[in-house]
Each structure stands twice: as structure tokens, then as C-alpha cells.
């Protein structure tokens, strides 16, 4: 070992600061210094640096995920909103209602799919009367359910409904086309509605066939509110007969258009608006939701008897409960959601392939860097984890951006359609989970490729 001279200070000038002083080697490390810090934090910051350095490329790569997640979230909020809207409407009817409608093989149960279901919903909730369907229900049927020897137990109330669409209503100088429904006095309590102004008509009004009317909110707006008139006590002309307005209903909203409706007593409608003795619907309120099934069966046998339907013949009427409506509707929504998920998977797979592609390119570009890291002591796991975390970061950032854009879009659309904006914890958590999964799955192959590089070969490459 040669003897060492401590260098003189004379050689210590600014330009020789490295060389002039005697550089001391660093203190050796102790074994407990090692393996203290987790490499995750450094990996994540290295990944973010790498992605930020190639901002445009990272953005374009993540675009697949962003678009996939955004479109799924936006569509999902829409379906959730529609679903909540309809479900609210159906639920507000109460879970103990049975709708009896005429016609054979109605589309309210099963077969009709989305459009049939929603049409059935609308029909049962009481909007436009079905045309071209064989009439079969009468007021006698309704009375048989509640009175006399054929009375069915557990029935709380019944209302017949006559529906007359496209009626022109005139009030002073205003006119409007709307639907007029003739209903019994029990109709209001069966639906559990409240009256906003004035009163509902009474059963004596009904029996006397009085010319009174209760306005739905839309009709009220069109005929009175727009010109600032108070409707109560005013006379409106329906089919050339004068009716006195006795009440106004509040906004119902929802999936039925009961806001664009005028309600008159059943007998009045029977006498003046209907040209047959048939009714369009019978509404039955069961006292307890648990009894709906038995009441449904009892009504069916009663009506089969009354309509003289023998075994083997199809019924000329249909019974639907709000539970069934909900069920049908949920089936349709599930189908639609499944379709949505399928399309989303395709779009996200494409996004994932984009990520895999770019990661492979990245690995090839950085072969020399990988070789260097290996020479500094990075093991195969370290290299693999580094690239895996890069892919994961890319997909998670894409998923987050997609989620935000999707929520924004969903909010805009649901606000525009006036349906509720529903966010569930699942709809927030799922994009993250799915994006992370995509990052891991599609990032794995490039990361494994990187880890398998031979350091000597890697260092030699350009």
C-alpha cells in the first residue's frame, strides 16, 4: 500500500474543488439502514414523472379509458335516473293497488319488453285510453267487488275509471286539449293524493252526476295560471257542457301524465262523455299489501264468473299490481343495464389494449434505462413493479378523469330530462376498481417483458 500524502491547500481553487480537497468516502452503511423505506412511494413518483414527461402520449393512451368510463357513467346515471323516476311513480301509487284493465293478452306482463312495459305502465297509471282493445269491464263489475254477496274481503276501496282523450277544454278565451277521466270519489284516497286548492268532489256529487271538475296542474297552468286567474268557481266547457272547477291537484310529476288531466265524477262522465256502458279501468285498493295476492285471485274468479269465461278460454280482462309493474320494469332495466355493461367492457378492453401497446413501446424505448437500473441493483421484481405501477397510474388517472366527465355529463342530461340524478357508492367505486383491474391486467405483459431483460444486453442497446 503506497503511503498517501494529504494534498496541499494550494491546489484548492474553485475549478478544482472536486480534486483539490481530499474527498472522503461516505460512511459505510449499517445493515439496519437497509430495507427501511417501501419502494412504493418512489415507484409512484417515478411513474408520475415518467407519465408527465410524455404528457401528450399519456393523455392519448388514457383516452380509451377516459371515454369508456365517461360514457358508462353518463349512461348509467341516465338509466338510474329513469329507473328512480318510474320506481318513484309506481311506488307512490302504493303497494296495495290492483289495476283491472280490459283486453286479452295485454302487454303489461312479461313479453312486451321495454316499450310494452312502459306502455303498460302508462296505461295502468291512467293516461290515454287504449284503443282497439275489446271492452269488457262494466260498472257492475266494480260494484260486485265491493257490494252484495260477491263482495271480496280485504278490499278497502274501488274506483271505476272512464278515460276520454283529446278533449278540448275551453275557459274564457283559453283552450287546451287534454284527457278527461271520470272517476269515483274514492279515487283521490286510493291514489293517496292531496288536493292543492279547493276540494275533491264527494260521492253525492258523483251519484248526482254533478258537473264539477278537478284540474291537474298542467291544465291549471294552461287555462288559468298563465293569465293569473284563480280557477276555483270558474266555469269551463268540456264537450260543450259547462263544468264548475272545484279543485286543483298539485304537481304529480313522475312517469305518468296525470298532470295533464281533468277529473270529473264517474257518473257525469258516464252520462256525458262515454258512448258505451263499458269502463276503461277499475282501480282496487287492498287493505294490506300482504293480501294483494289473495284479492287478485278472488277478483279473477269473480270476473271470470261474471263474464262467463269457462276453462280454456282466455280472460277478457287483465289484473296488474304495482308490484308486478315494478317487477316488469326492473326486468327491462336489468336487461338494459346488462347491455350497457357489455358495451362498456368492449370499450374498456380497447382502452386496455391501448395501454398495453404503449407500455410495450415504452419498455423497448427504455431498455438502456432498465439495464442501468439493474446494474444499480434493481431486481426483476423492482423493474416489473415499476412498469406495472406506471400502467396502473395511467389507468387510474384515466378512470378518475372519465368518472368526473361522466358525472358531469350525467348531471347535465338528467337535469335536462328532469329525472333524478342518482349516485350510488357502487357507481363511484366501480370505475376505480375496473380501471385498476385494467391497468394490472394489460400492464402485466409489458412489465414482465421488462423484468426479463438481460442486463448486459440491455446496457448494450441504443
Amino acid at each position, binding site marked *: 500500500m503506497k503511503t498517501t500524502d494529504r494534498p496541499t491547500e494550494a491546489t484548492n481553487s474553485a*475549478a478544482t474543488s*472536486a*480534486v*483539490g480537497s481530499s474527498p472522503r468516502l*461516505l460512511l459505510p452503511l449499517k445493515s439496519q439502514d437497509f430495507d427501511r*423505506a417501501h419502494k412504493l412511494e418512489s415507484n409512484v413518483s417515478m411513474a408520475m414523472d415518467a407519465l408527465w414527461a410524455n404528457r401528450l402520449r399519456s393523455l392519448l393512451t388514457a383516452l380509451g379509458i377516459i371515454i369508456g368510463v365517461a360514457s358508462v357513467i353518463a349512461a348509467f346515471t341516465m338509466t338510474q335516473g329513469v329507473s328512480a323516476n318510474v320506481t318513484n311513480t309506481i311506488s307512490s301509487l302504493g303497494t296495495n293497488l290492483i289495476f283491472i284493465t280490459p283486453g286479452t293478452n295485454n302487454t303489461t306482463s312479461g313479453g312486451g319488453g321495454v316499450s310494452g312495459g312502459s306502455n303498460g305502465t302508462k296505461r295502468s297509471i291512467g293516461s290515454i285510453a287504449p284503443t282497439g282493445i275489446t271492452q269488457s269491464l262494466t260498472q257492475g263489475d266494480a260494484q260486485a267487488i265491493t257490494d252484495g254477496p260477491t263482495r271480496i274481503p280485504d278490499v278497502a276501496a274501488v274506483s271505476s275509471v272512464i278515460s276520454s282523450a283529446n278533449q278540448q277544454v275551453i275557459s274564457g278565451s283559453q283552450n287546451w286539449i287534454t284527457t278527461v277521466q271520470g272517476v269515483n270519489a274514492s279515487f283521490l284516497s286510493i291514489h293517496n293524493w292531496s288536493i292543492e286548492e279547493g276540494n275533491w268532489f264527494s260521492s253525492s256529487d258523483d251519484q248526482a252526476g254533478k258537473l264539477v271538475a278537478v284540474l291537474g296542474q298542467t291544465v291549471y297552468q294552461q287555462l288559468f295560471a298563465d293569465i293569473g286567474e284563480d280557477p276555483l268557481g270558474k266555469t269551463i266547457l268540456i264537450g260543450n257542457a259547462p263544468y264548475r272547477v272545484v279543485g286543483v291537484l298539485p304537481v304529480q310529476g313522475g312517469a305518468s301524465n296525470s298532470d295533464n288531466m281533468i277529473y270529473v265524477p264517474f257518473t257525469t262522465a258516464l252520462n256525458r262523455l262515454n258512448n258505451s256502458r263499458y269502463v276503461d279501468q277499475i282501480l282496487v285498493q287492498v287493505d294490506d299489501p300482504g293480501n294483494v295476492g289473495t284479492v287478485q285471485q278472488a277478483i279473477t274468479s269473480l270476473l271470470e264468473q261474471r263474464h262467463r269465461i269457462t276453462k280454456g278460454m282466455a280472460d277478457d280482462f287483465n289484473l296488474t299490481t304495482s308490484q308486478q309493474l315494478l317487477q316488469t320494469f326492473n326486468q327491462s332495466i336489468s336487461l338494459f343495464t346488462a347491455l350497457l355493461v357489455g358495451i362498456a367492457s368492449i370499450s374498456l378492453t380497447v382502452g386496455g389494449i391501448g395501454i398495453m401497446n404503449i407500455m410495450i413501446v415504452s419498455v423497448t424505448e427504455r431498455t438502456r434505462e432498465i439495464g*442501468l437500473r439493474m446494474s*444499480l*441493483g434493481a431486481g426483476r421484481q423492482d423493474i416489473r413493479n415499476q412498469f406495472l405501477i406506471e400502467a396502473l397510474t395511467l389507468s387510474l388517472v384515466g378512470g378518475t378523469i372519465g368518472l368526473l366527465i361522466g358525472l358531469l355529463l350525467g348531471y347535465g342530461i338528467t337535469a335536462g330530462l328532469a329525472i333524478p340524478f342518482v349516485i350510488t357508492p357502487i357507481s363511484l367505486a366501480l370505475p376505480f376498481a375496473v380501471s385498476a383491474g385494467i391497468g394490472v391486467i394489460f400492464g402485466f405483459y409489458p412489465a414482465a417483458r421488462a423484468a426479463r431483460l438481460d442486463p448486459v444486453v440491455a446496457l448494450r442497446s441504443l
Partner: protein
Amino acid sequence: MNINKDMRKYTASLASAEPDGATPGAHQATPHVVNADNQERPLIIIHQLHKTYLLGQTRVHALRGVSIEISRGDFVAVRGPSGSGKTTFMNILGCLDRPSQGSYWLANHEVGQMSNQQLARVRNRMIGFVFQNFNLLSRATAMSNVELPMIYAGLSKELRTQRARQALQLVGLGTRLDHLPAQLSGGQQQRVAVARALVNSPSLLLADEPTGNLDSRTSVEIMAILQALHEQGLTIVLVTHEPDIAAYATRQIVFHDGRLLRDEPVSAPRDARAEWSVLATQNPDEDY
């Protein structure tokens, strides 16, 4: 593995061994020597190293039975024409590659047959690399570059920052911690690389043509740093094809056709520091 037993077997075999084709250095023909600084075992013991690999269809026999010992504190220059096996030798020395045959002991560990994971650890904690083309991460600052080996060693953030700063000050770049490689000259970049190589306190520094991409003046500066480190006790193995650079070392080995042709001490090594002080006074305004 019983180190002591293996070592005794090895020294016994040395005593009875016939010299191989290459002319060994004087101390190899005698039983195991205790070297001058009283350390029992040399840092590096290589015995009958062979390496063959396939290049397309041809089998290349890059190393044909190389045996050598390098003691702690040696400064060895490895020379030889291209194709002589010196690069392959360096790769094996640096645990980047494994020998096909033969044994390689580094600081009492037989690294020749270690797994990839173990080799990575050895590279991280016992070896420091300096490359011809610096091999710095272009997007990272000098500090981040120097921290890299410590990240893989799992050192805490505070310790990493402290040691990185120390290492950069050691090579005279204490004012350029946050510079990117693009903002540094070639010489400065190589100094960052040296700092990076030192930061885990390795036992061995391997330099592969460290001055290959530098001009003559900066080469002197880098060699001065290496010599200064050597004076502190660091073992350095330097590959070069330039005899001028090899002259800074204290021992020279020459490869030829996969074998050691010569292994001799350097009689009068150049003093880089002295040369540098002359150069610096000649052009004091140039800050490389």
C-alpha cells in the same frame, strides 16, 4: 456453505496447481499470501473462469480459463483489444453475467452461482458502476440520479437525501444538486455517475471506459477523482483501451483471446492531481 472449508480447499489447490496457459503474476505460484494491509483474503478471487455464449449460430468462447486475485485497495487497469474478453470479464466481475465455468468469490461470497435476485443485491450493495456514456436518467436531477441505488437498497428518505448530498459534494457538484443532465457538461455528468456509484459504500468500483466520451482535460479531472478515492481505500477496476489512462492505475492486466496475457504492477503511475493542477492554472477560467 462453509466458507472456511472451501477456502482451505482452494488454497490447497493453488499450492499444487500447475500454471495455466497465461503467465500468472508472481504471487499466484506461491501459497496464499497475506497482502500488505494485513487483510486475510483478497476482495476478489477468480479461478478458472470460462464464459461461452451463442452468437447466432456460432459458439463464442469469450473467456478461456482466467484466474486472478484482486486485493482490497487495488487499482487495476484492464486492457486488451476488442474481442479479447475484457468486457465479458467486467460483466462477470460486476455480477451482470454469470460464468459458464469456474468460481468467482467477491468479499467471501461465491457470487458465481448466485440467483438473479442475489446478484441484484450484490450489485446494489457491493459494487458501483461508472459507464462510458454516463447512463444518467435524463429526466431526473443530479440528486435523484444519485439517490437511485439507495432507493433500491430501501434506505429512508432522510438518509438518502443526506448521502446523496454528501456524495455530490464529494465530487465537487454541491452547487448543482438540482441540475438535469442536460444542464451539465460531460465531465460533470460523469462526476454525478461517480457519486452515484459511491452512494451505497460499495467494496468495488467498476469503471468501463469512464473517460471514453470526455476530452483529455476532463479525463484528467475524472482520473484525479478516481485516484483520490483509491487513496481512501476504494478498490477500483477500470477497463480501458488507452494506455495513457491505464497509466493512472497501480496494476495492469492485459487480456488477449480470452486469457490473461500479462498481470504486472505499474511502476510509476501518473499523478492525475498534479497534472490537473497544472491544467487548471493554465486555463483558470474554464469550468468543466
